[in-house]
Protein backbone atom coordinates (compact mmCIF):
# COMPACT_ATOMS: atom_id res chain seq x y z
CA UNK A 1 0.00 0.00 0.00
CA UNK A 2 1.35 3.36 -0.95
CA UNK A 3 1.03 5.93 1.81
CA UNK A 4 -0.13 9.34 0.69
CA UNK A 5 1.77 12.32 1.98
CA UNK A 6 -0.77 15.11 1.52
CA UNK A 7 -0.01 17.25 4.54
CA UNK A 8 3.70 16.57 4.23
CA UNK A 9 3.59 17.77 0.62
CA UNK A 10 1.79 20.91 1.72
CA UNK A 11 4.48 21.64 4.28
CA UNK A 12 7.10 21.00 1.61
CA UNK A 13 5.47 23.60 -0.62
CA UNK A 14 5.17 26.15 2.14
CA UNK A 15 8.78 25.82 3.19
CA UNK A 16 10.11 25.72 -0.36
CA UNK A 17 8.38 28.95 -1.27
CA UNK A 18 9.54 30.73 1.84
CA UNK A 19 13.19 29.63 1.78
CA UNK A 20 15.33 29.03 -1.23
CA UNK A 21 18.58 27.73 0.11
CA UNK A 22 17.26 24.78 2.02
CA UNK A 23 16.91 21.12 1.17
CA UNK A 24 13.62 19.57 2.19
CA UNK A 25 13.04 15.85 2.35
CA UNK A 26 9.89 13.94 3.18
CA UNK A 27 11.34 10.95 4.95
CA UNK A 28 8.33 9.03 6.10
CA UNK A 29 4.87 9.60 7.41
CA UNK A 30 4.70 12.65 9.69
CA UNK A 31 8.42 13.25 9.47
CA UNK A 32 9.97 16.00 7.35
CA UNK A 33 13.66 16.89 7.34
CA UNK A 34 14.96 20.35 6.49
CA UNK A 35 18.69 20.72 5.86
CA UNK A 36 19.84 24.30 6.19
CA UNK A 37 23.04 26.16 6.85
CA UNK A 38 23.37 27.58 10.29
CA UNK A 39 22.25 31.15 9.64
CA UNK A 40 18.91 29.90 8.27
CA UNK A 41 17.96 27.94 11.36
CA UNK A 42 16.59 30.85 13.33
CA UNK A 43 14.43 32.20 10.45
CA UNK A 44 13.08 28.75 9.70
CA UNK A 45 12.17 28.12 13.32
CA UNK A 46 10.54 31.52 13.62
CA UNK A 47 8.64 31.09 10.36
CA UNK A 48 7.44 27.65 11.34
CA UNK A 49 6.32 28.87 14.72
CA UNK A 50 4.65 32.10 13.69
CA UNK A 51 3.21 31.23 10.28
CA UNK A 52 2.80 27.46 10.15
CA UNK A 53 1.70 26.82 13.73
CA UNK A 54 4.61 24.64 14.79
CA UNK A 55 4.39 25.96 18.31
CA UNK A 56 5.62 22.92 20.21
CA UNK A 57 9.34 22.43 20.57
CA UNK A 58 10.24 18.80 21.09
CA UNK A 59 13.93 18.40 20.96
CA UNK A 60 17.35 19.83 20.32
CA UNK A 61 20.13 17.38 19.94
CA UNK A 62 23.67 17.28 18.68
CA UNK A 63 25.40 14.54 16.72
CA UNK A 64 29.15 14.34 16.43
CA UNK A 65 30.24 13.40 12.89
CA UNK A 66 33.90 13.20 13.68
CA UNK A 67 34.87 11.73 10.31
CA UNK A 68 33.46 14.79 8.51
CA UNK A 69 34.82 17.12 11.19
CA UNK A 70 31.33 18.44 11.79
CA UNK A 71 28.68 18.69 14.47
CA UNK A 72 25.09 18.27 13.43
CA UNK A 73 22.44 20.14 15.41
CA UNK A 74 18.90 18.84 15.11
CA UNK A 75 15.89 20.92 16.11
CA UNK A 76 12.66 18.97 16.22
CA UNK A 77 9.41 20.90 16.31
CA UNK A 78 5.85 19.70 16.20
CA UNK A 79 2.54 21.16 15.20
CA UNK A 80 -0.73 20.32 16.93
CA UNK A 81 -2.65 20.86 13.68
CA UNK A 82 -0.67 18.81 11.19
CA UNK A 83 0.95 16.47 13.74
CA UNK A 84 4.17 16.51 11.72
CA UNK A 85 7.59 16.25 13.32
CA UNK A 86 9.69 18.83 11.50
CA UNK A 87 13.43 18.24 11.81
CA UNK A 88 15.62 21.27 11.15
CA UNK A 89 19.17 20.03 10.69
CA UNK A 90 22.29 22.06 10.37
CA UNK A 91 25.98 21.24 10.30
CA UNK A 92 28.61 23.36 11.99
CA UNK A 93 32.36 23.28 12.02
CA UNK A 94 33.84 21.00 14.65
CA UNK A 95 37.03 22.94 15.28
CA UNK A 96 35.52 26.18 16.51
CA UNK A 97 31.88 25.31 17.09
CA UNK A 98 29.47 28.16 17.60
CA UNK A 99 25.75 28.33 17.00
CA UNK A 100 23.17 31.07 17.16
CA UNK A 101 21.31 31.37 20.41
CA UNK A 102 17.64 30.46 19.92
CA UNK A 103 16.29 30.41 23.45
CA UNK A 104 14.12 33.47 22.91
CA UNK A 105 11.77 31.48 20.67
CA UNK A 106 11.13 28.70 23.14
CA UNK A 107 12.30 29.10 26.69
CA UNK A 108 13.06 25.41 27.13
CA UNK A 109 15.86 25.60 24.56
CA UNK A 110 17.77 27.18 27.43
CA UNK A 111 18.15 23.79 29.10
CA UNK A 112 19.14 22.03 25.88
CA UNK A 113 21.76 24.63 25.09
CA UNK A 114 23.23 24.38 28.55
CA UNK A 115 23.58 20.65 28.09
CA UNK A 116 25.06 20.86 24.60
CA UNK A 117 27.52 23.52 25.66
CA UNK A 118 28.70 21.30 28.44
CA UNK A 119 28.66 17.94 26.69
CA UNK A 120 29.98 18.99 23.27
CA UNK A 121 31.65 22.31 23.95
CA UNK A 122 29.52 24.22 21.47
CA UNK A 123 29.30 27.91 22.29
CA UNK A 124 26.11 29.92 21.92
CA UNK A 125 27.11 33.60 21.78
CA UNK A 126 24.73 35.81 23.68
CA UNK A 127 23.31 32.95 25.67
CA UNK A 128 22.90 33.49 29.39
CA UNK A 129 22.83 30.41 31.51
CA UNK A 130 24.67 28.75 34.33
CA UNK A 131 27.95 27.35 33.09
CA UNK A 132 27.79 24.05 34.93
CA UNK A 133 24.78 21.91 34.28
CA UNK A 134 25.44 18.24 34.87
CA UNK A 135 29.15 17.85 35.36
CA UNK A 136 31.20 19.38 38.11
CA UNK A 137 34.87 20.35 37.89
CA UNK A 138 35.24 18.69 34.50
CA UNK A 139 38.67 19.28 32.99
CA UNK A 140 38.82 16.73 30.18
CA UNK A 141 37.44 16.86 26.64
CA UNK A 142 33.65 17.48 26.66
CA UNK A 143 32.51 13.95 27.34
CA UNK A 144 29.93 13.38 24.63
CA UNK A 145 32.42 14.05 21.83
CA UNK A 146 33.40 10.91 19.97
CA UNK A 147 37.10 11.39 20.64
CA UNK A 148 36.59 11.14 24.40
CA UNK A 149 37.30 7.56 25.42
CA UNK A 150 35.25 6.79 28.48
CA UNK A 151 36.88 3.41 29.16
CA UNK A 152 40.34 4.93 29.22
CA UNK A 153 39.13 7.62 31.58
CA UNK A 154 37.61 4.98 33.82
CA UNK A 155 40.83 2.99 33.94
CA UNK A 156 42.76 6.12 34.83
CA UNK A 157 40.42 7.43 37.49
CA UNK A 158 38.51 4.70 39.23
CA UNK A 159 39.35 1.52 41.08
CA UNK A 160 38.13 -1.80 39.82
CA UNK A 161 37.16 -4.72 41.93
CA UNK A 162 39.66 -7.51 41.66
CA UNK A 163 38.62 -10.39 39.51
CA UNK A 164 36.79 -8.19 37.09
CA UNK A 165 39.68 -6.69 35.22
CA UNK A 166 39.98 -9.50 32.70
CA UNK A 167 36.28 -9.23 31.71
CA UNK A 168 36.41 -12.84 30.68
CA UNK A 169 33.64 -15.20 29.89
CA UNK A 170 32.76 -16.73 33.24
CA UNK A 171 30.18 -19.11 31.91
CA UNK A 172 32.65 -21.96 31.62
CA UNK A 173 33.75 -21.54 35.20
CA UNK A 174 30.16 -21.47 36.37
CA UNK A 175 29.34 -24.52 34.30
CA UNK A 176 32.27 -26.40 35.79
CA UNK A 177 31.16 -25.48 39.28
CA UNK A 178 27.57 -26.51 38.79
CA UNK A 179 28.48 -29.59 36.78
CA UNK A 180 26.23 -28.71 33.87
CA UNK A 181 27.09 -28.54 30.21
CA UNK A 182 26.92 -25.24 28.37
CA UNK A 183 23.97 -25.53 26.02
CA UNK A 184 24.73 -25.26 22.31
CA UNK A 185 22.70 -22.13 21.74
CA UNK A 186 24.75 -20.34 24.39
CA UNK A 187 28.07 -21.32 22.83
CA UNK A 188 27.04 -19.47 19.70
CA UNK A 189 27.21 -16.11 21.46
CA UNK A 190 30.66 -16.72 22.88
CA UNK A 191 32.84 -13.64 23.04
CA UNK A 192 35.64 -14.96 20.89
Amino acid sequence: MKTSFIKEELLFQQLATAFENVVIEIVRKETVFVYASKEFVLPILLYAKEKLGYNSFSHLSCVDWIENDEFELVYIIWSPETKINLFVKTRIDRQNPTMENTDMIWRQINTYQREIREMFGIEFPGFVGEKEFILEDWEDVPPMRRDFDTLEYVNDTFFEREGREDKQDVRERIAKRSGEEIPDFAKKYSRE
Partner: protein
Amino acid sequence: MREKSTTIYLGPQHPGITGNMMVKLQLEGDTIVKAQTHVGYLHRAFEKLIERRNWMQTTTILCRFCVPEPDPPEAAFALAVEQIEGREVPERGKYLRSLVLELARIQSFLLWYAGQSGSAGLYTVGQWSVGDRNYVLDLFEELTGGRIYHMYIWPGGVRRDIPVGFKDKVLRTMDYIEKRIDDYDRMIFDSAIFQKRAQGVGIINKEKAIEWGVVGAPLRGCGIAHDVRKDNPYDAYDKLDFQMGVFEGGDVWARAKVRQFEIRQSISMVRQIIQNLPAGDFLNKMPNPMKWTIPAGSAYGKVESVRGEFGFHVVSDGSDKPRRVHARGPAYVHGVSLLEDILVGENLADVSFIMNSLGVCPPEIER
Protein backbone atom coordinates in the same frame (compact mmCIF):
# COMPACT_ATOMS: atom_id res chain seq x y z
CA MET B 1 12.03 47.45 57.39
CA ARG B 2 13.99 45.21 55.06
CA GLU B 3 13.26 41.56 55.47
CA LYS B 4 16.20 39.30 56.04
CA SER B 5 16.58 36.74 53.29
CA THR B 6 17.60 33.18 53.98
CA THR B 7 19.14 30.70 51.58
CA ILE B 8 17.94 27.14 51.81
CA TYR B 9 19.45 24.25 49.92
CA LEU B 10 16.59 21.89 49.30
CA GLY B 11 18.60 18.82 48.58
CA PRO B 12 20.41 16.78 47.47
CA GLN B 13 19.97 15.20 50.88
CA HIS B 14 16.52 16.33 51.86
CA PRO B 15 13.40 14.33 52.52
CA GLY B 16 11.26 16.69 50.49
CA ILE B 17 13.09 16.48 47.21
CA THR B 18 11.78 14.15 44.51
CA GLY B 19 14.95 12.26 43.78
CA ASN B 20 18.56 13.27 43.93
CA MET B 21 18.65 16.89 42.87
CA MET B 22 18.90 20.26 44.50
CA VAL B 23 16.87 23.44 44.49
CA LYS B 24 18.58 26.44 45.95
CA LEU B 25 15.94 28.73 47.36
CA GLN B 26 16.22 32.29 48.45
CA LEU B 27 13.56 33.04 50.99
CA GLU B 28 12.07 36.13 52.49
CA GLY B 29 10.08 34.89 55.40
CA ASP B 30 8.38 31.84 53.94
CA THR B 31 8.13 33.25 50.41
CA ILE B 32 10.55 32.27 47.67
CA VAL B 33 12.16 35.15 45.82
CA LYS B 34 14.62 33.16 43.76
CA ALA B 35 14.94 29.50 42.90
CA GLN B 36 17.76 27.78 41.15
CA THR B 37 17.88 24.10 40.25
CA HIS B 38 21.06 22.07 40.32
CA VAL B 39 20.99 18.70 38.63
CA GLY B 40 23.61 16.18 37.64
CA TYR B 41 23.81 14.09 40.77
CA LEU B 42 22.50 11.11 38.85
CA HIS B 43 24.46 11.51 35.63
CA ARG B 44 25.54 8.07 34.45
CA ALA B 45 26.46 8.97 30.87
CA PHE B 46 23.87 6.67 29.35
CA GLU B 47 24.13 8.27 25.97
CA LYS B 48 27.85 7.70 25.94
CA LEU B 49 27.43 4.10 27.05
CA ILE B 50 24.83 3.43 24.37
CA GLU B 51 27.33 4.50 21.72
CA ARG B 52 29.57 1.71 22.96
CA ARG B 53 26.88 -1.00 23.01
CA ASN B 54 25.35 -2.73 20.04
CA TRP B 55 21.67 -2.31 19.25
CA MET B 56 20.51 -5.26 21.30
CA GLN B 57 22.58 -4.40 24.35
CA THR B 58 20.96 -1.00 24.63
CA THR B 59 17.80 -2.57 26.08
CA THR B 60 19.42 -3.01 29.50
CA ILE B 61 20.31 0.66 29.61
CA LEU B 62 17.10 2.06 28.18
CA CYS B 63 14.81 1.07 31.01
CA ARG B 64 17.06 2.80 33.52
CA PHE B 65 16.48 6.20 31.99
CA CYS B 66 13.49 6.85 34.16
CA VAL B 67 13.25 4.90 37.35
CA PRO B 68 9.61 5.31 38.42
CA GLU B 69 8.33 4.39 34.98
CA PRO B 70 10.83 2.33 33.01
CA ASP B 71 8.71 1.28 30.04
CA PRO B 72 8.13 4.50 28.07
CA PRO B 73 11.84 4.89 27.25
CA GLU B 74 11.93 1.35 25.89
CA ALA B 75 8.82 1.98 23.83
CA ALA B 76 10.04 5.33 22.49
CA PHE B 77 13.38 3.86 21.48
CA ALA B 78 11.71 0.89 19.84
CA LEU B 79 9.41 3.23 17.91
CA ALA B 80 12.34 5.27 16.66
CA VAL B 81 14.28 2.21 15.59
CA GLU B 82 11.25 0.78 13.83
CA GLN B 83 10.80 4.04 11.97
CA ILE B 84 14.38 3.97 10.70
CA GLU B 85 14.31 0.31 9.83
CA GLY B 86 10.75 0.20 8.54
CA ARG B 87 10.10 -2.83 10.72
CA GLU B 88 6.51 -3.84 11.31
CA VAL B 89 5.17 -4.91 14.68
CA PRO B 90 2.64 -7.75 14.82
CA GLU B 91 -0.79 -6.83 16.10
CA ARG B 92 -0.45 -8.88 19.26
CA GLY B 93 2.89 -7.27 19.96
CA LYS B 94 1.28 -3.85 19.71
CA TYR B 95 -1.44 -4.77 22.17
CA LEU B 96 1.04 -6.29 24.61
CA ARG B 97 3.13 -3.13 24.42
CA SER B 98 0.13 -1.01 25.23
CA LEU B 99 -0.71 -3.36 28.06
CA VAL B 100 2.71 -2.95 29.63
CA LEU B 101 2.72 0.78 29.09
CA GLU B 102 -0.66 1.16 30.73
CA LEU B 103 0.28 -1.05 33.67
CA ALA B 104 3.42 1.03 34.08
CA ARG B 105 1.27 4.11 34.00
CA ILE B 106 -0.98 2.75 36.71
CA GLN B 107 1.90 1.89 39.01
CA SER B 108 3.41 5.27 38.39
CA PHE B 109 0.11 6.95 39.22
CA LEU B 110 0.05 5.02 42.47
CA LEU B 111 3.52 6.29 43.23
CA TRP B 112 2.32 9.77 42.41
CA TYR B 113 -0.51 9.40 44.93
CA ALA B 114 2.13 8.67 47.53
CA GLY B 115 4.31 11.61 46.54
CA GLN B 116 1.53 14.15 46.26
CA SER B 117 -0.13 13.25 49.52
CA GLY B 118 3.13 12.63 51.35
CA SER B 119 4.44 16.06 50.46
CA ALA B 120 1.22 17.45 51.89
CA GLY B 121 1.76 15.50 55.11
CA LEU B 122 -0.82 12.80 54.53
CA TYR B 123 1.29 9.69 54.78
CA THR B 124 -1.56 7.21 55.08
CA VAL B 125 -2.54 7.39 51.43
CA GLY B 126 1.07 6.98 50.42
CA GLN B 127 1.43 3.87 52.53
CA TRP B 128 -1.72 2.41 51.04
CA SER B 129 -0.97 3.20 47.44
CA VAL B 130 2.67 2.11 47.50
CA GLY B 131 1.56 -1.06 49.23
CA ASP B 132 -1.06 -1.70 46.55
CA ARG B 133 1.45 -0.88 43.85
CA ASN B 134 3.12 -4.18 44.70
CA TYR B 135 0.16 -5.98 43.12
CA VAL B 136 0.85 -4.28 39.79
CA LEU B 137 4.54 -5.05 40.15
CA ASP B 138 3.61 -8.68 40.72
CA LEU B 139 1.96 -8.66 37.30
CA PHE B 140 5.15 -7.30 35.79
CA GLU B 141 7.15 -9.93 37.56
CA GLU B 142 5.01 -12.66 36.11
CA LEU B 143 5.01 -11.17 32.64
CA THR B 144 8.59 -9.97 32.29
CA GLY B 145 10.56 -11.39 35.19
CA GLY B 146 11.46 -8.07 36.75
CA ARG B 147 9.76 -5.96 39.37
CA ILE B 148 11.06 -2.55 38.36
CA TYR B 149 13.14 -2.93 35.22
CA HIS B 150 11.45 -5.03 32.58
CA MET B 151 13.44 -4.81 29.32
CA TYR B 152 10.27 -6.12 27.75
CA ILE B 153 9.71 -3.95 24.71
CA TRP B 154 12.07 -4.74 21.86
CA PRO B 155 12.21 -3.19 18.42
CA GLY B 156 9.82 -5.39 16.48
CA GLY B 157 7.53 -6.41 19.30
CA VAL B 158 7.83 -7.65 22.82
CA ARG B 159 10.16 -10.15 24.43
CA ARG B 160 7.73 -12.86 25.45
CA ASP B 161 4.10 -13.83 25.39
CA ILE B 162 1.76 -13.64 28.37
CA PRO B 163 1.81 -16.64 30.69
CA VAL B 164 -1.17 -18.93 31.28
CA GLY B 165 -3.86 -17.45 33.50
CA PHE B 166 -2.37 -13.99 33.25
CA LYS B 167 -5.49 -12.37 31.85
CA ASP B 168 -7.62 -13.28 34.86
CA LYS B 169 -4.95 -12.05 37.18
CA VAL B 170 -4.77 -8.70 35.43
CA LEU B 171 -8.53 -8.26 35.55
CA ARG B 172 -8.66 -9.18 39.23
CA THR B 173 -5.86 -6.75 40.05
CA MET B 174 -7.57 -4.01 38.10
CA ASP B 175 -10.80 -4.58 40.03
CA TYR B 176 -8.89 -4.34 43.27
CA ILE B 177 -6.98 -1.20 42.28
CA GLU B 178 -10.15 0.47 41.06
CA LYS B 179 -11.81 -0.21 44.39
CA ARG B 180 -8.82 1.11 46.29
CA ILE B 181 -8.35 4.36 44.38
CA ASP B 182 -11.84 5.37 45.46
CA ASP B 183 -10.52 5.21 49.00
CA TYR B 184 -7.50 7.32 48.16
CA ASP B 185 -9.64 9.88 46.41
CA ARG B 186 -11.88 10.16 49.42
CA MET B 187 -8.85 10.84 51.58
CA ILE B 188 -7.19 13.32 49.23
CA PHE B 189 -9.73 15.05 47.08
CA ASP B 190 -12.47 15.25 49.70
CA SER B 191 -10.11 16.64 52.31
CA ALA B 192 -10.74 20.33 52.90
CA ILE B 193 -7.12 20.82 53.89
CA PHE B 194 -5.82 19.31 50.66
CA GLN B 195 -8.20 21.44 48.61
CA LYS B 196 -7.05 24.54 50.44
CA ARG B 197 -3.42 23.68 49.84
CA ALA B 198 -3.71 22.63 46.21
CA GLN B 199 -5.97 25.29 44.77
CA GLY B 200 -4.20 28.31 43.37
CA VAL B 201 -0.72 26.95 44.00
CA GLY B 202 1.93 26.51 41.33
CA ILE B 203 -0.10 28.09 38.55
CA ILE B 204 0.99 27.69 34.93
CA ASN B 205 -1.18 29.62 32.52
CA LYS B 206 -1.81 28.67 28.91
CA GLU B 207 0.64 31.10 27.31
CA LYS B 208 3.40 30.09 29.67
CA ALA B 209 2.67 26.43 29.07
CA ILE B 210 3.22 26.83 25.32
CA GLU B 211 6.22 29.07 25.68
CA TRP B 212 7.98 26.72 28.07
CA GLY B 213 6.95 23.56 26.25
CA VAL B 214 5.02 21.99 29.08
CA VAL B 215 3.78 18.49 28.29
CA GLY B 216 1.61 15.80 29.76
CA ALA B 217 -0.66 16.17 32.74
CA PRO B 218 0.55 19.69 33.59
CA LEU B 219 -0.38 20.80 30.05
CA ARG B 220 -3.78 19.16 30.19
CA GLY B 221 -4.24 20.79 33.57
CA CYS B 222 -3.96 24.15 31.78
CA GLY B 223 -6.87 23.28 29.55
CA ILE B 224 -4.88 22.32 26.44
CA ALA B 225 -5.81 18.94 25.03
CA HIS B 226 -2.59 17.30 24.01
CA ASP B 227 -1.67 13.67 24.42
CA VAL B 228 0.75 11.76 22.22
CA ARG B 229 -1.50 8.74 22.44
CA LYS B 230 -4.25 10.74 20.70
CA ASP B 231 -2.19 13.03 18.48
CA ASN B 232 0.37 10.63 17.05
CA PRO B 233 -1.12 7.25 17.98
CA TYR B 234 1.42 4.50 18.42
CA ASP B 235 1.06 0.84 19.29
CA ALA B 236 -2.57 -0.07 19.84
CA TYR B 237 -3.79 3.30 21.05
CA ASP B 238 -5.71 4.12 17.86
CA LYS B 239 -7.90 1.10 18.53
CA LEU B 240 -8.57 1.79 22.18
CA ASP B 241 -11.35 3.93 23.49
CA PHE B 242 -10.18 6.52 25.99
CA GLN B 243 -10.44 10.18 26.81
CA MET B 244 -7.96 12.83 27.80
CA GLY B 245 -8.52 14.44 31.14
CA VAL B 246 -8.55 18.17 30.43
CA PHE B 247 -9.09 20.54 33.30
CA GLU B 248 -8.85 24.30 33.56
CA GLY B 249 -6.84 26.16 36.15
CA GLY B 250 -3.24 25.14 35.71
CA ASP B 251 -2.66 24.73 39.43
CA VAL B 252 -1.74 21.70 41.49
CA TRP B 253 -5.41 20.91 41.97
CA ALA B 254 -6.09 20.77 38.21
CA ARG B 255 -3.08 18.52 37.67
CA ALA B 256 -4.25 16.25 40.44
CA LYS B 257 -7.71 16.09 38.86
CA VAL B 258 -6.16 15.17 35.51
CA ARG B 259 -4.34 12.28 37.09
CA GLN B 260 -7.35 11.19 39.09
CA PHE B 261 -9.27 11.02 35.81
CA GLU B 262 -6.55 9.30 33.84
CA ILE B 263 -5.79 6.46 36.20
CA ARG B 264 -9.37 5.30 35.67
CA GLN B 265 -8.92 5.64 31.92
CA SER B 266 -5.81 3.49 32.14
CA ILE B 267 -7.65 0.81 34.06
CA SER B 268 -10.39 0.78 31.45
CA MET B 269 -7.76 0.57 28.70
CA VAL B 270 -6.10 -2.41 30.34
CA ARG B 271 -9.48 -4.13 30.41
CA GLN B 272 -10.06 -3.36 26.73
CA ILE B 273 -6.64 -4.72 25.80
CA ILE B 274 -7.21 -7.92 27.72
CA GLN B 275 -10.61 -8.40 26.07
CA ASN B 276 -9.49 -7.63 22.53
CA LEU B 277 -6.04 -9.21 22.59
CA PRO B 278 -5.56 -10.60 19.07
CA ALA B 279 -3.95 -13.96 18.43
CA GLY B 280 -0.75 -14.40 16.49
CA ASP B 281 2.89 -13.52 16.76
CA PHE B 282 4.16 -11.13 19.37
CA LEU B 283 7.65 -10.49 17.96
CA ASN B 284 8.81 -9.93 14.43
CA LYS B 285 11.80 -12.23 14.19
CA MET B 286 14.95 -10.24 14.03
CA PRO B 287 18.35 -11.31 12.75
CA ASN B 288 21.10 -12.54 15.04
CA PRO B 289 21.05 -9.87 17.75
CA MET B 290 24.83 -9.74 17.91
CA LYS B 291 25.10 -8.92 14.20
CA TRP B 292 22.05 -6.74 13.95
CA THR B 293 22.69 -3.58 11.95
CA ILE B 294 20.28 -0.79 11.26
CA PRO B 295 20.34 1.29 8.06
CA ALA B 296 21.60 4.85 8.28
CA GLY B 297 18.99 7.41 9.20
CA SER B 298 17.46 9.21 12.09
CA ALA B 299 14.09 9.34 13.75
CA TYR B 300 12.29 10.79 16.70
CA GLY B 301 10.13 8.32 18.58
CA LYS B 302 7.83 9.65 21.24
CA VAL B 303 5.38 8.16 23.67
CA GLU B 304 3.22 9.55 26.41
CA SER B 305 4.55 8.72 29.83
CA VAL B 306 2.79 9.64 33.04
CA ARG B 307 4.49 12.97 33.27
CA GLY B 308 4.29 13.81 29.58
CA GLU B 309 5.92 13.29 26.25
CA PHE B 310 8.97 11.05 26.35
CA GLY B 311 11.02 11.25 23.18
CA PHE B 312 14.07 9.54 21.77
CA HIS B 313 16.14 10.96 18.97
CA VAL B 314 18.00 8.03 17.46
CA VAL B 315 20.68 8.40 14.81
CA SER B 316 22.14 5.40 13.06
CA ASP B 317 25.13 5.42 10.74
CA GLY B 318 24.49 1.95 9.39
CA SER B 319 26.75 0.11 11.80
CA ASP B 320 25.90 -2.32 14.55
CA LYS B 321 26.05 0.41 17.20
CA PRO B 322 23.88 3.51 17.56
CA ARG B 323 25.58 6.67 16.46
CA ARG B 324 23.75 8.90 18.86
CA VAL B 325 20.78 8.49 21.12
CA HIS B 326 19.38 11.50 22.88
CA ALA B 327 16.51 11.23 25.28
CA ARG B 328 14.12 13.94 26.19
CA GLY B 329 12.05 13.25 29.24
CA PRO B 330 9.20 15.46 30.38
CA ALA B 331 11.16 16.38 33.50
CA TYR B 332 13.82 17.85 31.24
CA VAL B 333 11.39 20.67 30.60
CA HIS B 334 9.53 20.72 33.89
CA GLY B 335 12.35 20.13 36.27
CA VAL B 336 14.95 22.70 35.32
CA SER B 337 13.95 26.08 33.97
CA LEU B 338 10.18 25.88 34.38
CA LEU B 339 10.56 24.97 38.03
CA GLU B 340 12.89 27.90 38.58
CA ASP B 341 10.25 30.14 37.08
CA ILE B 342 7.09 29.00 38.79
CA LEU B 343 8.57 28.59 42.25
CA VAL B 344 9.12 32.33 42.56
CA GLY B 345 6.44 33.81 44.77
CA GLU B 346 5.37 30.47 46.18
CA ASN B 347 5.58 29.39 49.79
CA LEU B 348 8.44 27.19 51.00
CA ALA B 349 5.82 24.74 52.23
CA ASP B 350 4.67 24.14 48.67
CA VAL B 351 7.97 23.41 46.93
CA SER B 352 7.85 19.67 47.35
CA PHE B 353 4.13 19.75 46.66
CA ILE B 354 4.62 21.51 43.32
CA MET B 355 7.55 19.33 42.34
CA ASN B 356 5.46 16.23 42.89
CA SER B 357 2.60 17.60 40.87
CA LEU B 358 4.90 18.42 37.96
CA GLY B 359 6.48 14.98 38.24
CA VAL B 360 10.07 16.11 38.43
CA CYS B 361 12.16 12.99 38.03
CA PRO B 362 15.91 13.76 38.05
CA PRO B 363 17.22 10.55 36.41
CA GLU B 364 15.67 11.55 33.09
CA ILE B 365 17.00 15.10 33.26
CA GLU B 366 20.63 14.17 33.48
CA ARG B 367 20.56 10.55 32.33
